[in-house]
């Protein structure tokens, strides 16, 4: 039985797909068989971030509609063994993800994997609800910014009331916060909510803090999950987050302003 992890946020563009790719890659690198599934029907993107867009033949909806088998649709990652990707369909049909279809595909994936990472679309409509419904764990990706924090809180409400675990009266979904695009300098200046602020408002466990970093764009340009860029700040922050996800304790590395020269200390704030 695999553990199902949903990467969710409510608000769009906060880093869910970046995080899904990093987490899935990190889990597989640590030796866990992992499948990462793109639930963003109509706006397929995970394949690009993972660098396998040219190998997509069949997608999630093809498997649901039984036009292809799961094995035909799964793309094996070429860099990390034990990692595979199920791409989203580009259909415009918002009802393509049927309840039964999604349940069946997740069940089948569950047989051969230790983790299933579900990349949720933005919003709180069907695709997002479907991605959340089956989850055992949720990573709530949040930017230190008012609308993202508010949307994250709404998503927490949905996770606790509209999930399968809630319906079956089982132990609730484990919810953890991943704060991304964090700019320690702006926090120090008082322009940006701090990690403590966001944690206090949302009241959930912290999994990691990923700094605002050029490395993320560079990695997605190249189709490499940023976690594999091991000498970058964002890559290391994701490595720490994955280690914590797997139960390890790691200190936080990117919360303080980087030391600057004299000039920076005087004028750079």
């Amino acid at each position, binding site marked *: 039985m695999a553990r199902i992890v949903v990467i969710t946020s409510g608000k769009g563009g906060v880093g869910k797909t970046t995080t899904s790719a990093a987490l899935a890659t990190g889990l597989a690198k640590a030796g866990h068989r992992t499948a990462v599934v793109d639930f963003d029907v109509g706006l397929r993107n995970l394949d690009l971030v993972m660098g396998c867009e040219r190998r997509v033949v069949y997608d999630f909806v093809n498997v649901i509609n039984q036009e292809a088998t799961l094995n035909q649709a799964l793309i094996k990652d070429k860099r990390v063994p034990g990692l595979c990707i199920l791409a989203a369909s580009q259909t415009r049909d918002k009802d393509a993800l049927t309840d039964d279809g999604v349940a069946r595909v997740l069940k089948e994936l569950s047989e051969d994997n230790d983790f299933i990472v579900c990349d949720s679309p933005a919003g709180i409509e069907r695709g997002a609800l479907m991605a959340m419904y089956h989850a055992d764990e949720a990573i709530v990706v949040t930017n230190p*910014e*008012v609308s993202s*924090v*508010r949307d994250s*809180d*709404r998503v927490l*409400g949905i996770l606790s*009331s509209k999930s399968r675990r809630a319906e079956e009266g089982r132990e609730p979904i484990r919810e953890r916060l991943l704060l991304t695009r964090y700019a320690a300098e702006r*926090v120090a*200046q*008082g*322009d*940006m*909510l*701090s990690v403590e*602020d966001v944690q*206090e*408002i*949302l009241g959930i466990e912290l999994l990691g803090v990923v700094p605002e970093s050029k490395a993320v764009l560079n990695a997605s340009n190249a189709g490499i999950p940023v976690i594999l860029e091991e000498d970058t700040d964002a890559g290391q922050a994701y490595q720490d987050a994955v280690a914590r996800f797997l139960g390890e304790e790691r200190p936080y590395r990117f919360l303080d302003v980087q030391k600057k020269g004299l000039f920076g*200390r*005087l004028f750079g*704030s």
Partner: protein
Amino acid sequence: MMSLLSYFRSQRKNTARVAKERLQILVARERSQRDGPDYLPALQEELLQVIRKYVEVDNEAVQMHLDKDGDCEILELNITLPDQRHS
């Protein structure tokens, strides 16, 4: 040197603090709405209709807030009547 720097910092408006305060209020309100019983929105709507039999009020006139005090749930109702001069 550091004190000079912190002096300049304190002169700037701390927008993060404002953001945090606004979010705390908003999130508390939204949580109390979603954690409340399902009939709350319908109750609010009917209360509005009853009030409108007597005075004309807008949709915001009835505010409800659910609080927990130990085992006891308290439903706080706030009804804002229109300004007398205009009615």
